[in-house]
C-alpha cells in the first residue's frame, strides 16, 4: 500500500509533460464555452483525423530529434511521394490501395536513405543535408509532375478511400496513426535497437566507444522518417484527393513544433511518446478549434502564438513546482 503510493508519486514526477496535459484540458474547457460543438464526438473525430498525418510524421521526427538530427525535408518528401503515387494511380486506376501505400512508403524510404547516407556516412550536418534535400526533392516533384496537378477525378475510389474508409468503425487514418504509435512505442521502449536510438542521441561518443553501430542507427532513423513521410504523402493525397507540386510546403515546421511542444529536446537524447501525443493533440486542437471559436481570422495567428507560448510556459512552471516540492521532501 505504502509502496504503491510511493510508486505513484515516482510516476507523476517522471511525467514531465504534466503541465501540458493540464493546459490542454484548460484550453478545451475554454473553447467548449465559446463553441459547444467542440467536445462532441464527431468534432473530436474530425480533430483526430486532421491530426493523424501530423502525428505520424511526429513519430519519425521524434526519433530524428533524439539522435540529435533534424529533418527539414519532410514537406518535400510528402509532396514527392504523394505526387508519384497519385500519378501512378492516375495511369493505372486498378492498382490496389495497399500497393499505393507501399509505393509511397518506398519512395519516402528512398529519400530517407539518401539523407541517412549524407548524415550518417558523409557526416553532413543534418540541418544542411535536409535543407538541401528539401530543395532537391521539391525541385524533382515539380519536374516529374511538369507543373500539373493530379485531381480527384483521376484517382480511383479505393485510393481515395484510404483516407475516408473505416476500420472497426474508426476512420482509417486514425487507425493507421494508432497502429503506428503502438508499433513505435513498442519499438523504442522495448527493443534493443529502439533503446540504442536514445543511447546514440544521449552521448554519441560513448555510443561509439561502447560499440553501438552509431552510423547504422542514425541511418535507420532517417530511413524510418523518410518512410513515414512517404506514407504520409500517400495519406495526404488520398485525404485531399489532389496532388500538387507545392503540397505541404513548410509542413516540417508544424511537425517540429508539435515535437518540441511535446517535450522532445532539440539537443537530442530525450523525448517520450506520451509527450509526443500531447504535443500533436495540442497542435490538432489549435488547427481545429481556432476557426471554431469565431474570432476574426486576422487574430488567429496571434492567438495561436499566445497559446503555444502559454502552453510551454505553464509546462515549465509546473515542472519547476514539482522539482521544488521534490527538494522540499528531501530530508537533510
Amino acid at each position, binding site marked *: 500500500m505504502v509502496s504503491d503510493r510511493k510508486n505513484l508519486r*515516482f510516476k507523476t514526477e517522471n511525467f514531465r509533460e504534466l503541465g501540458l496535459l493540464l493546459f490542454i484540458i484548460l484550453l478545451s474547457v475554454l473553447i467548449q464555452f465559446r463553441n459547444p460543438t467542440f467536445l462532441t464526438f464527431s468534432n473530436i473525430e474530425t480533430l483526430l483525423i486532421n491530426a493523424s498525418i501530423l502525428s505520424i510524421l511526429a513519430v519519425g521526427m521524434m526519433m530524428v530529434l533524439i539522435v540529435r538530427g533534424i529533418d527539414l525535408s519532410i514537406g518535400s518528401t510528402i509532396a514527392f511521394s504523394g505526387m508519384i503515387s497519385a500519378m501512378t494511380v492516375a495511369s493505372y486506376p486498378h492498382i490496389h490501395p495497399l500497393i499505393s501505400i507501399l509505393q509511397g512508403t518506398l519512395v519516402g524510404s528512398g529519400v530517407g536513405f539518401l539523407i541517412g547516407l549524407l548524415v550518417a556516412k558523409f557526416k553532413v550536418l543534418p540541418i544542411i543535408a535536409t535543407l538541401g534535400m528539401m530543395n532537391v526533392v521539391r525541385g524533382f516533384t515539380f519536374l516529374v509532375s511538369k507543373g500539373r496537378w493530379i485531381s480527384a477525378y483521376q484517382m480511383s475510389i479505393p485510393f481515395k478511400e484510404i483516407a475516408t474508409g473505416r476500420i472497426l468503425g474508426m476512420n482509417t487514418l486514425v487507425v493507421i496513426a494508432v497502429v503506428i504509435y503502438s508499433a513505435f512505442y513498442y519499438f523504442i*521502449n522495448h527493443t534493443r535497437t529502439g533503446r540504442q536510438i536514445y543511447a546514440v542521441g*544521449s552521448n554519441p561518443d560513448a555510443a561509439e566507444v*561502447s*560499440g553501438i553501430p552509431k552510423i547504422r542507427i542514425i541511418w535507420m532513423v532517417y530511413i524510418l522518417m523518410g518512410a513515414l513521410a512517404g506514407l504520409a504523402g500517400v495519406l495526404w493525397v488520398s485525404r485531399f484527393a489532389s496532388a500538387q507540386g507545392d503540397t505541404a510546403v513548410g509542413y516540417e515546421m508544424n511537425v517540429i513544433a508539435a515535437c518540441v511542444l511535446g517535450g522532445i529536446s532539440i539537443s537530442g537524447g530525450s523525448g517520450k511518446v506520451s509527450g509526443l501525443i500531447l504535443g500533436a493533440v495540442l497542435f490538432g486542437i489549435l488547427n481545429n478549434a481556432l476557426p471554431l471559436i469565431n474570432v476574426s481570422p486576422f487574430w488567429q495567428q496571434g492567438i495561436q502564438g499566445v497559446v503555444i507560448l502559454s502552453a510551454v510556459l505553464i509546462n515549465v512552471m509546473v515542472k519547476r513546482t514539482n522539482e521544488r516540492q521534490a527538494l*522540499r521532501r528531501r530530508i537533510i
Partner: protein
Amino acid sequence: MSEYILELRGISKTFPGVKALDDVNFNLKPGEIHSIMGENGAGKSTLIKIMTGVYIADEGQMFFNGESVVIKNTNDSQRLGIAAIYQYVTSYPDLSVTENIFIRHEKVHPITKKIRWKAMHQAASELLRQLGASFDPRTRMGTLSVAQQQIVEIAKALSVNARIIIMDEPTAALSNRESEELYRVTEKLRNDGVAIIFISHRMEDFYRLADRVTVLRDAKYIGTWNKSDIDHDKLVMAMVGREITQMFPKRSVRIGKEILRVENLGREGYFKDISFNLHKGEILALTGLVGAGRTELCESLYGIAPFDEGAIWFDGKQVKFRHPREALDNGLGYLPEDRLGHGLVLDWELFRNVSLPALKEFSFRGFLSLMKEIRKTKEFGERLEVKATSVFDKAATLSGGNQQKIIVAKLLTADLKVIILDEPTKGVDVGAKTAIFDIMGDLAEMGYGIIMISSEMVEVLGLSDRIVVMKEGRVTAVLNTAHTSQEQILRSALGSANGEVNHGK
C-alpha cells in the same frame, strides 16, 4: 598457452604533435591486479584505449592468451572479454541507470526479443548493492553526481562477466568509504580469476590492491615490478624521474584576520545550518563523504546557486553573490569539481582558457590583446609547470593533471582574496599534486584564504589548518588539524548528523 592472458609488445602511438606511447610493453596474468602508474600525460589512458580498440596503435603487437590479435574497434575487445571503465565517465545522461549498466547486453526475451525491464532493474539493484550504493536503478543517469555515475560505470563493467577489467582512475571521484567497497569488489573479482588493470594516482590504491605495477614516464616504458620488490621512494622515483622529498610541504603561515564568515547558511534540499569561518592565510579543509553537499555549499558561496537562508560576511561586508562575476570581482574564486564540464573550454587553446575569467585584464576598451594573453599564459604555465607544447595547444589534448593546472592558472589571473578548490588533486599525479600543494602554500603565504574540498584523509590532515566535516548537508564537526586524527574525522563524517556539532578539543 601463455602465462599471460594479455600481452602488448612495442606499442607506439603518436597524436598530432605528441608521442603518447613509445615502444611500450605490458603484460597481464590471469587473476592478478596490475597497476599502471605514471605522471599525468605519461600515456596510461592511451595504452588502455589501445587495448580496448578506441585507438589503434601505430606500431606494436598484441597477444591474447599467447595468440596474436588485432583489435580494431571496441567490438573486437568486447568479444575478447575486455571491459573498461574509462577515466571520464562515458555514460548516457538521458537513460536510466539500469540501461547504462546493461547497454549492449540487455536482457531480452529469447523469442520476442522484448527487453526484460523487470529482470534488468533487479539485476542492476543487485549490482549497485554490491557496490554499496543505494540509489534507484530507475533514476536518470544525468541526475546523479559524478561519484554516483562512476559507481554505475563500475557496475557496468561488472555486469558483462569480463575476463579482463580495466579501471582508469575509478577512485578519483570516490571517497574512502566507496573506495573500500570498490576494493572489496575488485578483490573478489580477482579471486574469481578475472584479470584487472587498475590505474590510479593514489598510492594507497596501489598498496591496498595491486599485485604488480607497470610504470610509464613520458610515453616510455620504465619497468614492471612485483609489489614486494619496490618501495615507495623507488616507485615515485620511477614515475617522476626525480626524488620527491616532501609530499606535504607544510609551511608555517601566520594566520591573519577573519576574511569569510558563514552563518546558518541553508539551501532547501541541499544543506542547512552551515556555520564556519576562514582567515587570511588559512587553509580550511572541507571534507565528508561523497554527496555530503560540499560542492553545493561552495557553489552557493560562489553565486552559482543562491542560498535561501543565513548570511555570509566577506571581508567585513555582508554579501550575497548572485553571479560568479560578483564573487570574482569581490575576490572570491572557485575551482570547480567537474574539470571538463565546468572548468575548461576543451576546444580552445590554453591561452583563451586562461584569459576567460578576466577578459577585462586582457583587453583595452573591449578589444582583446592577443600578446597579453599569450604572455600571461606562458608565465603562469611556467610557474605551474604545465606540460604542453605551446600555449596554442587545445585544452582537450592535455592530460588530466595538466588540465587541472590550467584551471588553477585561470584563478590566478583574477585578483582574489579567497579561493575555493573543489577536489583539486582529483586524478592528478604525485608530482603535480605536490606542485598544486606548493601553489596552495604560496597563496596562503600571500594572504589568501583557502577552502579545499577533499575526500582524501592524508591530504586533509597533511595540508589544512582546520577541518570542517559535513554529512548529509550539515556540518558535523569543525576540527583543529593539529589536534585531530583520522578516526575522529571519519566518525564525524559517518556519525549522526543530528548530534551536536563537534568543535574539537
